[in-house]
């Protein structure tokens, strides 16, 4: 197993955390893993991306030109990365915030109205967990179980009130992802 995942979206959408969750989970499962943010201009700014490489082998390059998985949190990210995904790769899209129509037909495409669902759940910030779940449904690089465990651990006591919500979002994403998988 060797996956090169790019999470991409606006700042504030929990993009980096989604990537870190994957990285920590991979570590918990004793996999080789790297996480790296694309740290842009020195100043604050619009976009937030990170790349996670999960592998059974030691990771050579922590960056990639042709990711095997892209999780696009918004429209600009989708536009930027659609063409880069490896053939037969996975493209997870936050349907709520995109207008761009995906052109490629050689991909495993998952469309999730994550922000809308998250808002329904009462917390827009759950967008990232929903997308994460959907991704995992299609590429079970790590077990949902481990991810949940790590998630609660990372949220910690201080965010105990958000534990349940996060888990719900994660599972919801998984569910939606699986649903689309059967369809595809």
């Amino acid at each position, binding site marked *: 197993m060797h996956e090169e995942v790019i999470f991409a979206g606006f700042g504030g959408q929990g993009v980096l955390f989604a990537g870190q969750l994957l990285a920590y989970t991979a*570590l918990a499962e004793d996999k080789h893993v790297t996480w790296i943010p694309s740290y842009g*201009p*020195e100043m604050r700014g619009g976009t937030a991306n990170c790349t996670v490489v999960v592998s059974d082998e030691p990771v050579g*390059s922590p960056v990639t*030109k*042709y990711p095997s998985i892209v999780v696009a949190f918004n429209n600009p990210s989708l536009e930027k990365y659609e063409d880069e995904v490896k053939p037969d790769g996975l493209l997870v899209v936050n349907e709520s915030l995109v207008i761009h129509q995906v052109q490629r037909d050689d991909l495993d495409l998952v469309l999730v109205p994550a922000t809308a669902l998250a808002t329904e759940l009462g917390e827009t910030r759950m967008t990232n967990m929903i997308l994460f779940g959907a991704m995992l449904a299609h590429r079970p690089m790590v077990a949902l179980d481990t991810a949940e465990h790590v998630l609660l651990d990372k949220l910690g006591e201080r965010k105990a009130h958000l534990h349940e919500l996060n888990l719900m979002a994660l599972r919801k994403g998984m569910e939606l992802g699986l649903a689309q998988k059967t369809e595809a």
Partner: protein
Amino acid sequence: MPVELMKGNTALAEAAVRAGVEAFFGYPITPQTELLEHMSKRMPELGRAFVQAESEVASINMVYGAACTGTRVMTSSSSPGISLMQEGFSYIACSEVPCVVVDVMRGGPGLGNIQPSQSDYFQVTRSAGHGDYHAIVLAPSSVQEAVDLMGDAFDLADQYRHLVFVVADGLLGQMMEPAELPPMQPLRTERPDWALTGANGRDPNIITSLELSAPALEAVNDRLQAKLKVIRETEQRSTENMTKDARLVVVGYGTAGRIAETAVKQARREGMQVGLFRPITLWPFPEQRLSALTDHVEALLVVEMNAGQMVEDVKLAAGGQIPVEFYGRTGGVVPVPEEIYDAIVESYEKLA
């Protein structure tokens, strides 16, 4: 110690803490800032010294001062900041006080940008400042290696009373990767006998880089060069992969080295006899091992995140025996394995 997922910058900082660094002086600069930030928290909480200096010039001179007292001391910065420290480095090297400097290199020249780069190679390996000397330069290629080399850096600095660089690049600094930290070392309580500790019951100790007479300064240089010779002979470090039967060997350090490894493996899968040589010490450059390789290797391909700097050392080590090719990216562009693979194929096809 458990394996943790750590950012390179933070890992470097915490490794230094555990190696017993007693004082950190630094100035913020991307992409090394997390290192300084980690120190700003850890050092005071351990009762050790942390000063955010007014500039890199001040940082390195604070380091110089603290180093004169025989304590373990360090700073960290990135390319433009390293440029500002050149005078200080030269003083430190001449005075033979030990210290460690981390350079998390970024795109240059000038203000450039904050993307990963290896374009300070010349600056750190040739003479980091005016005058004749080389600093010891260690180049990790993973967070774990960064942690390990950080400890070595302090040991080497103390052993040789010398300036030691640990050079990373933005990628290694910003990347999170699992690594195991060493246990916390107790702080040294003894000070070396040359250290400034107050002339209590002994003659005054003096730390200086001034020698007004030319013969006296030449003697200082002779001592320095003799020391460097020992280091050059005993401290060369490198690692190799699949070089035994290799016809082409890729030479890369740090991030470029690890990315090249992926490309090399790919080439092997395609049946090419390719290997990887990764220098760990950039100075002393591992010329002994590399020049030994020229016995059976037919060509070398140097991969750097710059316009071609280490390639000179590789050529010097190869001594004109075999061709040395170069593939580099500049301005903060990180080469991906695919393009290094292409460069490998190109070089490989040229082999007789």
